[in-house]
């Protein structure tokens, strides 16, 4: 806990630098990552991240040590080179994009590892920290490194804000963008360059192996929270920043630990929280949704059963026992009881202690049950009449559709069928208001709505 306060109180200027650098990096990779994910270029991002390793090594050899500017230059050149290679292979051969991506990733990375080993076995005086480029080491950044890498991130953030409108169109509808004369090729190139740049900016803090995850995971997690591109960018940036901060904190408290994996693990935590708990799209809320639906279907079926007893013997006041009801549904006693107590609370049924103990529909309950039976039979009629489905095949479909038919759809059904008296099985269709039947069926077709 002490370490936590010491770190986030930002008293140590070195910590301020490192934290500032990783947070900027997280924001920038969240922004670029959003477009990368939306344009389905996530794998390309991964390939580019791996492919910059030989560039980093060459930069190291040229500088004779760790010089951030030369490292960035080398990484940038190789990132670009890998993209051009992937594009060239896909365009000019029968090899599919995924294959060319995989090839470029492994070949470039392999070359990088070869160079890395050569440097390590040679007589370079200062080769400390070269390993860091594989898995990242945020804490080893000094002021100058932060200025270079943080500056890159800042440049990327500003660029995305500037070309937001153009990036939005080419990501959503490329043909339209072309048709209004946008310089699509140049915009796509700009987007690709920004992606290479952000990957380059991450070599020190995250490392080449895992940089792609910083691009992809915050954006993928953010998609669970919003349907608007501007908010998506904002949330992805925040998630990126959180991951960046968490990574650098761990790098600070445990200097032997590489930063990249920790950043990715933090990002993954954010993703899992989103995946399970985001309202609306998260797994939990979807599960609740479907539980709610199946509970509604069951209780509607129970209401219908009560009504069908009445229909059979015409005795609305008669009390129906639990065992009678149990025969109509495939439900456990416990579930049935919970449904009945729900219906009672909603005042859809009366419960009589007996003897014989049992249940009777209330006025409202009967109305609702009638509605269900009505839409069931109307739907059967519709299937039979408009889709020419034989009457012995319509029941099962209506059994599930009755729970989905809204008031509006019922109105349309009645309009196009003309409120018929009987369903295809010659059962009476129960209306609340027999007087207001619509006799004229031809003038009231669906289209006029």
């Amino acid at each position, binding site marked *: 806990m002490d370490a936590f306060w010491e770190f986030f109180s930002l008293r140590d200027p070195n910590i301020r630098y490192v934290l500032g650098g990783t947070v900027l990096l997280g924001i920038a990779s969240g922004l670029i990552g959003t477009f990368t994910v*939306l344009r389905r270029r996530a794998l390309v991002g991964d390939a580019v991240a791996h492919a910059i390793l030989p560039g980093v090594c060459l930069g190291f050899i040229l500088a004779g040590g760790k010089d951030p500017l030369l490292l960035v230059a080398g990484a940038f050149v190789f990132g670009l080179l890998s993209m051009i290679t992937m594009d060239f292979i896909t365009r000019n051969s029968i090899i599919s994009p995924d294959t060319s991506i995989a090839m470029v990733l492994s070949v470039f990375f392999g070359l990088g590892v070869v160079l890395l080993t050569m440097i390590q076995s040679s007589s370079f005086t200062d080769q400390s920290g070269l390993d860091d480029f594989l898995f990242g080491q945020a804490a080893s950044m000094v002021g100058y490194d932060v200025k270079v890498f943080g500056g890159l991130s800042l440049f990327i953030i500003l660029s995305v804000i*500037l*070309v937001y*409108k*153009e990036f*939005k*169109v080419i*990501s*959503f*509808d490329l*043909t*339209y963008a*072309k*048709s*209004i*004369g*946008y310089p699509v090729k140049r915009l796509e190139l700009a987007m690709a360059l920004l992606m290479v740049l952000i990957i380059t900016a991450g070599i020190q803090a995250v490392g080449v192996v895992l940089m792609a995850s910083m691009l992809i995971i915050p954006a993928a997690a953010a*998609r669970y929270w*919003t*349907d*608007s*591109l501007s908010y*998506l960018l904002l949330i992805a940036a925040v998630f990126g920043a959180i991951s960046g901060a968490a990574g650098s904190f761990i790098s600070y408290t445990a200097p032997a630990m590489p930063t990249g994996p920790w950043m990715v693990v933090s990002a993954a935590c954010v993703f899992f929280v989103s995946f399970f708990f985001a309202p609306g799209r998260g797994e939990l809320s979807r599960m609740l949704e479907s539980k709610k639906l199946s509970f509604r279907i069951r209780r509607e079926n129970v209401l219908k059963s009560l009504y069908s007893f009445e229909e059979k013997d015409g005795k609305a006041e008669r009390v129906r026992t639990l065992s009678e009801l149990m025969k109509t549904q495939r439900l456990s006693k416990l579930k049935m009881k919970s449904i009945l107590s729900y219906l009672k609370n909603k005042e859809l049924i009366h419960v009589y202690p007996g003897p014989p103990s049992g249940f009777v529909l209330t006025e409202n309950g009967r109305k609702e049950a009638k509605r269900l039976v009505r839409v069931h039979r109307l739907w059967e009629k519709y299937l039979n009449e408009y889709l020419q489905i034989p009457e012995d095949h319509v029941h099962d479909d209506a059994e599930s559709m009755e729970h989905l038919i809204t008031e509006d759809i019922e109105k349309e059904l009645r309009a196009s069928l003309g409120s018929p008296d009987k369903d295809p099985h010659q059962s009476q269709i129960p209306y609340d208001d027999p007087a207001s039947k619509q006799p004229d069926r031809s003038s009231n077709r*669906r*289209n006029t*709505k």
Partner: protein
Amino acid sequence: MNEKSPHMPPLEVHDLTVAYNQKPVLWNIDFEIPEGSLTAVVGPNGAGKSTLIKAIMGLIPSSSGYALFYGKPLGKRRSSVAYVPQRESVDWNFPVNVFDVVLMGRYPHLKLFQRPRPVDKEIAMNALKEVGMQEYSDRQISRLSGGQQQRVFLARALAQDASVYLMDEPFAGVDAATERVIFNKLKELQEQQKTILVVHHDLQNIKAYFDHVMMLNLRLTAFGPTQSTFTDDNLQKTYGGRLNILSQIVERSRQERFVREKE
């Protein structure tokens, strides 16, 4: 719209040939569309209907020939031409709402990096009203029916405020209500002397909806007023099988990766 010369046709296409790497090919297409006409482009599957308007819009390269709008190439007439792509061409799960998409119709009137102005938002909202979709402006586009999605595309084109409209299958997979909305809108545009070219697949309503018809099957088989052009004879020519030798040479040029010399 701005400086159109009165004698120039809104769209003329000269000897357009498209040798597309894989799919259909167009052969020496040559026509001139009269101002204020509503034209249906019809033909069998793979006849090159979409290819034609894509080539006119410069979205795919053509091996020879050219298209002019009011006597000038498209590059000089961007703001007076609106193109409506096929609905399937975009990812409807993309995180934008209806209004955002329609607002994109104003982008050709904005400079690079310029943000939409209040007046653009007003125009976009009006376009949305015109297709009866104003209540849906905040709705995410994936939660629309196929017909509503098509209306959103039409609204975007309306917001472009163009004088020539090229539409790729705007009636594909739409409900009856949407079909009526779109068709009424096209009629209205026509009354404002706009010129409209529509790739269409339903031969049933050609006579009721369109005053001109263009019949296509790798080559232009017929073009003119619907009354005199949409005849059994021309339908037979268009739909009665491919010209055998022409399809053979098309197939060969594809296999040989043949590229015509550019003049």
